[in-house]
Structures are given as C-alpha cells and as structure tokens.
C-alpha cells in the first residue's frame, strides 16, 4: 500500500441474498490500483468480477451486503462514508462504463442533455458554452460522427457500437482519475473490439487514467492492462504483472484459461480443458476451484487458499503451486502477440 495508491480493496467480503440466507459472492478480496495504472480483472461468468466492479463505485443494493472489508478511494472508505461523499465521487472522480452501453443511456433524453446535466452537476464552475464545447470535443474524441449535432439525437438513433462509445464519453466527461469498465468489448465483433481498444489506449495516454478493466477475454486484457487479476467464484486466485500472469500462469485455473486461448497457429488443447462450468452449488469451502482442478488433492477442498507472493508483485492462491511448477510447461507461445 503506497501513497500513490488510488484505489485499495481490503479483504472485501460480500454476500448476496439467497432465499432466506446469504451466499458469499466475494471472499476476502484484496487488490490495489495505483494512479495511472490499468488493472485487468479476468474470470468467467459468475466469478464476481462485475459485482466487484460495481462495488468500486460504492453501489449498494438491497439484495447485497458488505460483510467485512473496505473499498478505499484515496482517503475515502466508500462504504463507511456519508452518501453525499460517495455521490460526489461518482462520475466526477470515478467513472463507470457498463457492459451494455446503450441500455445505460436514458431513452427519453437527448444525448447532449445527458452530458449537459451531468457536467452541470459535477462542474458548476463551467459555463454553458464551455460545457457545450466540452461535449462536442468528447463526442469527437470517441469517434462519433458530426459531434456538433450528435447531441441533439436520442440514444436509439445511434448504432450499438456508437452507444457504447457515448457511454465511455459520459464516463470521461468530468475527467475522473479512475475508470471502471465492465466488459466494454464483450459482444462486439473483432473489428469493433480492436477499435474500442485503440480508443481506450489513446484515452488512457491522454488523460493519464487509472482503470479497472473487467473482461473474460484474456487477449484483450493483455493489450491494454499493466497488471492482471484472475478471479474464480469470488476469490482472487492469481494477481501480478499482466504479461507474467498470462504468459507464465502459475495457478491451475489461470493455466486452464490461458490454455483455452486459441493461438494463431494451433487449436486449444482439449487436455487442458476444464470439466464443466462454474456451479455455485458445488463450490467447496476451501479452494473454490478444487472440484474442477486437474491437480487438486482431497485436502484442497477443505483448505482455504490465501494469496502468496511467488515473485515480486506476482501472487497466487494455491498451496500446490511449487509442486505444479516442475510439471508445467511454459505456455508463452500460445498467446497471440
């Protein structure tokens, strides 16, 4: 934890309401993001990564509760601060780009007005003319054609890809320090995805933004992230420099994820395939991954795993990591450059 840390998640445990009881959806999750740093968060559906992303904005929902732990943005503890404080951070210093950008734009509001009311609220120091100029600049920056007149149109008059870009522009409007993106490229075709990634790289460079980039696509993660964290069923199983985590994965789950990536010249290895999918009713109390882990022993299911550093800045949550290292072959050649 350094002074340059923008965001710190400290041993966060979160439950979802399940009938009459509560089910743990995040267990003792810790991570940090430094100013200007891009952290990728990977995992399959249901791993809890979207929940974590929403929690970085201090979002509360009646069916969810923070059992223990903290989310700190700079000096603010998001779940212990007054609502007014959290509201002042949202949109202004922490931006959020949701998965389905179009659904996040109010259908009855012209796009320009969406920006205008946002900027009016967060930057009352700006004049109307300055705001309008900024809107035009933002829309142009994200590649919306005819940015001067685009503000008069309604969201449904734009294509899906453009709506996603508008959502991104909205998140950047007040020049936040941290941008949280929840699967911004999922569901788009390869061309669109590459264009969006290029845009994000430009934006990052020009605004010196820190980002949390949630995705299940490891190759995208590698293109844009400095560091990467891999989640499985509410636990962080591996975290470290992006290139290390993806080219030299140490945790069995990460290995399986990476092995499943199609290389440009060879198909994925079926022997590395995982059995079944994430079944929340069949997770063990110890290591969550044990039921599907090809290297699991009987004790793995009962032994809680904690993140242990195996190299500077690179930690994994698997007590069999050292033993598995000898058997594993490097998978660097699987990753598309």
């Amino acid at each position, binding site marked *: 934890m350094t002074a340059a840390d923008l965001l710190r998640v400290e041993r966060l445990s979160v439950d979802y309401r399940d009938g009459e009881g509560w089910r743990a959806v995040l267990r003792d999750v810790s991570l940090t993001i430094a100013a200007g740093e891009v952290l990728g968060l990977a995992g399959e559906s249901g791993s809890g990564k979207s929940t974590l992303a*929403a929690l970085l*904005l201090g*979002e509360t929902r009646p069916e969810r509760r923070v059992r223990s732990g903290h989310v700190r943005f700079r000096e603010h503890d998001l779940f212990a601060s007054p609502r007014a404080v959290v*509201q*002042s*951070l*949202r*949109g*202004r210093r922490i931006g*959020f780009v*949701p998965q*389905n950008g179009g*659904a*996040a*734009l*109010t*259908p*009855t*509001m012209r796009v320009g007005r969406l920006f205008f*009311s*946002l900027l009016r*609220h*967060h930057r009352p120091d700006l004049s109307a003319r300055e705001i309008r100029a900024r809107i035009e600049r933002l829309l142009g920056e994200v590649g919306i054609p005819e940015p001067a007149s685009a503000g008069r149109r*309604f*969201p*449904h008059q734009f294509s899906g890809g453009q709506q996603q870009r508008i*959502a991104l522009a*909205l*998140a950047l409007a007040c020049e936040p320090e941290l941008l949280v993106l929840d699967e911004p490229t999922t569901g788009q075709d390869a061309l669109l995805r590459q264009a969006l990634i290029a845009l994000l790289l430009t934006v990052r460079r020009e605004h010196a933004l820190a980002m949390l980039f949630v995705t299940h696509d490891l190759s995208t993660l590698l293109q844009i992230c400095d560091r990467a964290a891999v989640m499985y069923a509410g636990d962080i199983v591996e975290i470290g420099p992006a290139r290390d985590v993806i080219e030299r994965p140490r945790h069995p789950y990460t290995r399986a994820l990476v092995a499943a990536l199609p290389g440009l010249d060879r198909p994925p290895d079926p022997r590395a395939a995982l059995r079944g999918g994430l079944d929340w009713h069949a997770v063990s109390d110890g290591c969550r991954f044990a039921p599907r882990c090809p290297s699991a022993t009987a004790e793995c299911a009962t032994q809680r795993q904690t993140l242990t550093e195996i190299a500077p800045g690179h930690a994994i949550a698997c007590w069999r990591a050292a033993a598995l290292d000898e058997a594993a072959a490097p998978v660097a050649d699987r990753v598309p450059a």
Partner: protein
Amino acid sequence: MSRPLARLVGARLLLSLLSLFAVSVIVFAVMEALPGDTAQRILGRDATAQSLAVLRAQLHLERPAVERYGEWLGGVLHGDFGTSLVARRPVLPYIAAHLGNSLLLAGIALVLHIPLAVGLGLLGAATRRDGPIDTAISAAALLGMSLPEFVVGIVLISILATTLGWFPPLALLDEAHSVGAVISTLFLPVLTLNFAMTAYVLRQTRNAMFDVLRSDYVRMATLRGLPRGHVLLHHALPNALAPAINAIALNAGWLVGGVVVVEVVFNYPGLGRLLVESISFHDVPMIQASALVLSASYITINLAADMATVLLTPKLRVN
C-alpha cells in the same frame, strides 16, 4: 404528418363515425324498435288505454320503424332533436345546457386528477417500496378503486356537507352566481369523481415507476453521481409516463359513465341526470337525445384520447 400516421388517424376517424352511426341505430332501436308493443313497454303494465293511445300518436308508432329512424336522424343532423313529451318544448336547449354543465364537471375533474395522481404515484415510488408512505398511498389507491362513486359521494356529503356544513349537500349549479359559489357547488362532485380516477392513474404510475427504477439507465444515472431527485424526475418519470397517459385516456372515457351516477347523487343539472330522469318519465325524445349526445361525447373523447396517446407515445416509446 407522416403517411402512416395520417392513415392511422384517418382509420380511427372512420371507425368513430361508424360507431356514431351504430350508436344512433342502437339508441333508436332500443327505445322504439324492439319487438313487441312499444307503447305498452314504455308505459308499463298498468298503463291506461288512453295514455297508450296518446303515446302512440305522439311517437307516430303507426309508421314503420325505419322511416321513423330516418326522420329522427335527419332531424338530429339539422339540430332538431324533437319535442319533449313532458315539457312540450324543443329538446335541444335542454340538451345543450345540461351538456355544458356535464362538460364543466367532467373537465375540471379530469384536469385536476392528473397532477394529483402522477404526483402521488411518484411519491410512492420515490420512497422505499412497501415502506410506510408507499403502503399508505397504495392502500388509499386500492380503496379509491374499490369504492363505488355513489358510496363515496354519499359519505362525502354526510361528512363534509351535512355534518360539517362546509359545502352544500346538493350541487344546484343554476343557483350559484359567483365564482366562489360555483367552486363550492362543484367541489364535492369533482372530489367524488377524482377518488376513483386518481386511484387508477396513481397505481399505473407507481407500478411503471418501480419497473423503470430497476432499469439499467436509472442505475447508471445514479452511478454517475446524479442526485436522486433529478434521477427520479428526469430519467425515471418520462419513461414511466406511457402507462399513466393510457390510464388518463381511459379515465376520460370512464367519466361519461361516472358522471351519470355522480350527477344523480348530487342532483347536479347535467346530461346524466337528465337521461335518468327522462327514462323514469318515459320522455322518449329526451331519452334518445341525451343517450345519443352522451354516446357521441364518449366516442369523441375516446378518439381524442387515442390520438393524444399516439402522438405523445412515439417520442416516449423510443425503444
């Protein structure tokens, strides 16, 4: 106006005209053209032979029904609704005066209930769902929808008029000569009508708001740090209005029937009371005229409401 919209409006207009024509046939047929002895049926079993004969002569029942209908319809289209059998005077002035009174009552009730209902629905949705305020508002709405207008009217009269004396128990509009007196006369009837109408629109607004409050765009507006009031008013409400507008349109049509009962309860000189009275007096031309005009109002109001809904909704229903 765009082509498909113009076509829609034209189709609706045509349908309304057809309905109007059908209604005129129905109104005439029910009174004068049902099988059996018309005069006997109108005057009842204990009618004397003499009164039967008089009625037959007045209505020219010896002529075929279709001919009588044509004559009546022709007169109506020229503004001649015939002569009242009871007052022995032309029907039209009565209809006009009473129609004006009914329109006044219905119009005020319609206009007033809109902000009241939408405001309450918004309030209920703004607070916690099933919390104390929301439950109170929902319970009041349920009650408003369940109580018949005549019960509400009688209760209001007995409490606010008879017991407390704040308002007159009968709405004798013709004797109200100042604006204050008119307001005082109209207050209870309008309140009675608004009970049911407000309840209906309130529920629609509240339910729609709850749906909208769960949407992605409302969630995002909050995650962008916008204040709750702004989110409710500018992001949520506009998207919840479509069902509310639909409900208001339905209320407009409902008023035509509701006004009949309320006018009788308050003895208000409107077209509904005129219809009921003329039926009990067997005043056939008056019955036909008031029924026809009331139905025509119903058709017109429904047409206007449909058009308003169509015109307002494309902008709102942008998905």
